[in-house]
């Protein structure tokens, strides 16, 4: 068979047919799971951010309400609110090498780069902090309250999908909150 002046034999046709079928199967899988596969912390909100600049808002004023577009922060948990159960240590996870501290303290340049395309807000509230994170330009999910002593990390496995102020693939981004002993709360 000749395609644009080049000959493709029967084995080539067979190979392309198999590839086409495999592609269709993979595509069907991708279509069926198009609402899944988001980072554990739900950073992407279902879509990547390709236009917004990194933003991280922190308030040192206890009880200060988030400014402007920040999500409404929840108050300290009431008696009926379950406290997060500590999970494994962050240091034992495969993505520990890609985690960058956002809170407490001033984020390093690497952490700021990792925040590209994300909006992470951390506010002191009462005796703890409230944390909200999402894709930049998208509505933030409700903030969650954590007791004092926790640390907030941003995960960015690959900076290669960040360009300028855009993160074209949030599939390798995430947010992790650990307790004072480094165990993952979120």
């Amino acid at each position, binding site marked *: 068979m000749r395609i*644009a002046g*080049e000959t493709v034999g029967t084995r080539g046709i067979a190979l*392309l047919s198999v590839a086409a079928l495999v592609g269709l199967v993979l595509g069907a899988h*991708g279509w069926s799971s198009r609402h899944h596969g*988001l980072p554990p912390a739900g950073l992407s909100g279902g879509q*990547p951010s390709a236009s917004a600049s990194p933003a991280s808002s922190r308030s040192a004023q206890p009880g200060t309400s988030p400014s402007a577009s920040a999500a409404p922060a929840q108050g300290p948990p009431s008696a009926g609110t379950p406290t997060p159960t500590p999970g494994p240590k962050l240091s034992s996870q495969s993505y520990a090498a890609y985690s960058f501290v956002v809170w407490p303290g001033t984020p390093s340049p690497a952490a700021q780069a990792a925040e590209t395309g994300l909006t992470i807000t951390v506010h002191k509230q009462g005796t703890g902090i409230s944390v909200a994170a999402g894709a930049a330009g998208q509505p933030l999910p409700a903030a969650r309250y954590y007791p004092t002593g926790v640390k907030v990390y941003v995960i960015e496995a690959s900076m290669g999908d960040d360009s300028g102020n*855009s993160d*074209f*693939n949030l599939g390798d981004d995430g947010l992790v909150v650990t307790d004072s002993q480094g165990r993952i709360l979120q």
Partner: protein
Amino acid sequence: MSRKAGPVTASRTQSARKADPARRASAAPARTAGSAADDGLVGRAQGIAAEWAPTAARIMLGLVLAWFGYHELIQPQLWTGYVPGVTATSEFAIVLVLGHGWVLLMLAVAIIAGLALRLAAAIAAVLLLQIVITLTITGGLTDLTLRDVGVLGLALCLTGSTRQRAVLTS
């Protein structure tokens, strides 16, 4: 004394070489043989490169396309941010990404196997050109854009490739 000893010794050595034609004659072929061996090695390396570099380029470009095609197919929701002019949250964007991923996968198989290589490379070049233009418009000339310019160059090179090794033939 010791300062003068060096130059004197060197001078003696040079004069001894001049005075000994047999020694000079034996040294010259040794150098010629060495340079010939070097030339042979370089020539052989150049021959191997000329023979296999287009194949390496073909396979590497195919792997790049296969990687992106596969990931666009299995997680299209993570790539909708690249689709120009369409809301990233829409299902239409998902469909476009899936279609793009399927085409990339087919191109990858064709390029790696060497099937209609120049045509496949030309289509890949058009797709990459569209990506470069879109990225330039949306984000300017960034590291990401320039990286794709390099891949575009690789695809363009393969559109003119006439000699390939390790291709699937009928």
